[in-house]
């Protein structure tokens, strides 16, 4: 009989992904409604040291797979280990974050355990003991409510949407997991670090569009981003023009972001761009065209030349902070 909730807590090189605590908090709320235990699974080279991070989150049990061999994410291996955690915990709900890792591991597990999976959820409720998930479709132009009909119900949740809350102080039991062998002969994984701030997790994003005029001008938006501790995004027009890397593209065929604050500089607000950022809590638009569609969804707007407005904003922010 499946019971309770298991969270796949994501870590890289010993750093727990902050959004995993959002998943743990959601897991606790669900378990309070459906019964059973709240467990967490951590896989990686330095995973056992992370179990203490769950003390304040009402976690009953932490499943740990620790080995140097697991230093880097390997979908095939990690999913085999997580499958073992599922067979031990027998949860009725498994939750991961809809991150690069979570998006990859969740369908693997769902397939090998023949379970239903709702990806990138922005809302989760319980009805008649079953999970009802709300998830965006058509790049957020609509939302579906889906019921997951299998015994094991798997969810990935969008980062930055569910709040994170501590509760109580528990001493979770630690259970070790088998590492297992590799199934496919060659599979080498290597992390290449980059210094880029992470777009999908940042609480503030500053994006630039064609209004910046050329790649040499992006220091203007970068300075604003630095003053705010924000990540940098871009419209597809500037990515396609080769001004900015693909990894910065926000929109229907780029990243979906939902930061607390999204600042669009010199971006017209095409439907495909809006699809990637319209769920941001506060949207600021700076555009010299008062008719630009971006103003229709902006919380606050300034009509003006971004080359004049943005440096003034940087100045004002620096004054605030000094």
């Amino acid at each position, binding site marked *: 009989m499946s019971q309770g909730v298991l969270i796949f807590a994501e870590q890289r090189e010993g750093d727990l992904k902050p959004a995993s605590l959002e998943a743990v908090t959601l897991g606790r709320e669900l378990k309070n409604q459906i019964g059973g235990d709240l467990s967490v699974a951590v896989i990686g080279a330095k995973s056992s040291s992370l179990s203490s991070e769950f003390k304040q989150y009402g976690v009953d049990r932490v499943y740990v797979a620790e080995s140097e061999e697991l230093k*880097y*994410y390997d*979908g095939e291996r990690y999913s085999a280990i997580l499958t073992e955690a599922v067979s031990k915990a027998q949860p009725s709900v498994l939750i991961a974050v809809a*991150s*690069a*890792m979570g998006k*990859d591991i969740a*369908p*693997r597990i*769902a*397939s090998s355990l*023949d379970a*239903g*999976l709702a990806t990138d959820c922005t809302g989760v409720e319980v009805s008649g003991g079953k999970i009802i998930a709300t*998830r965006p*479709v*058509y*790049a957020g132009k*609509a939302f*579906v*409510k*889906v019921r*997951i*009909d299998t015994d094991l119900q798997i969810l990935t949740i969008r980062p930055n949407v569910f709040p994170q809350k501590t509760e109580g102080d528990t001493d979770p039991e630690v259970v070790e997991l088998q590492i297992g062998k590799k199934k496919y002969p*060659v*599979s*080498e*994984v*290597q*992390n*290449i670090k*980059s210094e*880029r*701030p*992470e777009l*999908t*997790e940042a*609480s503030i994003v500053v994006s630039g569009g064609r209004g910046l005029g050329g790649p040499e001008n992006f220091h203007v938006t970068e300075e604003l981003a630095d003053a705010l501790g924000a990540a940098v995004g871009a419209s597809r027009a500037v*990515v396609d023009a080769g001004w900015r890397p*693909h*990894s910065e593209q926000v929109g*229907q065929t780029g990243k979906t972001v939902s930061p607390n*604050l999204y600042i669009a500089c010199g971006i017209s607000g095409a*439907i495909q761009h809006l699809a990637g950022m*319209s769920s941001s809590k*506060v949207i600021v638009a700076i555009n010299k065209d008062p008719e630009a569609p971006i103003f229709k*969804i*902006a*919380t*606050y707007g*300034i*009509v*003006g*030349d971004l080359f004049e*407005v943005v440096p*003034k*904003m940087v100045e*004002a*922010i620096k004054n*605030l902070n000094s």
Partner: protein
Amino acid sequence: MNIVVCMKSVPSSETKVKVDSDGVSIEQTDVVYEINPYDEIAIEEAIRAKEAHGGKVTVLTLGPSTASQNIRKALAMGCDEAVHLICENVELADSSAVAELLSSSIKEMEFDVIFCGKKAIDCDNHQVPNRLAQLLDIPAVTAIFNLVLTTESGSAKREIEGGTELVTVNLPALFSAEKGLNEPRYASLPGIMAAKKKPFEERQVSLGDEKLTILSIELPPPTAEGRIVGEGPEAAGELVRILREEAKII
């Protein structure tokens, strides 16, 4: 090298979504169906793999009969053969049922490499490629923006938060395409002519058990009327004040 590319026809990214009267799907009138943008990248990568290593590319679609137009486009780009599994109402279908149908069709083919898009921009599921790879019992690397393919293996890069993963797997394997992998070509006129004569198999299928049930589809709540803070650089200070004092987010 035998290459299979999975392609879905999806409402164009410009579509203004309206909920259908049934409450669980969107209105089809005026919707233009295009090749899923990520699948266009997958098709391009498949054709490049064929150009480098020889062999053939089979494009596989599960979708309504109207999807055949886009399958022709894929053939015109340079795919060699097409298999169309005809089934209405797959737009928001559960990925496990979709992957089942695709995998049983692929199992009848010879394949060394399978290309997919990272996700379909209608259902946004991001599930089919990994499910497919599991059903076929082959390794998968998803959302890749770079691939070095030999006749034995593929080394692919995928973007992760704050970095890149480099994953090498032996063939047969599945790769799903992220933007940046390549720039898809346009179909040439000779390509369009040639497409008409290429093998095109059609088969009626029906979806098996779905593991998710759609209860409703809704539009997002309308955003509150925005506020123009002002014009020109003079407004910058006021905007910053509002963000700090009223919105309390900086």
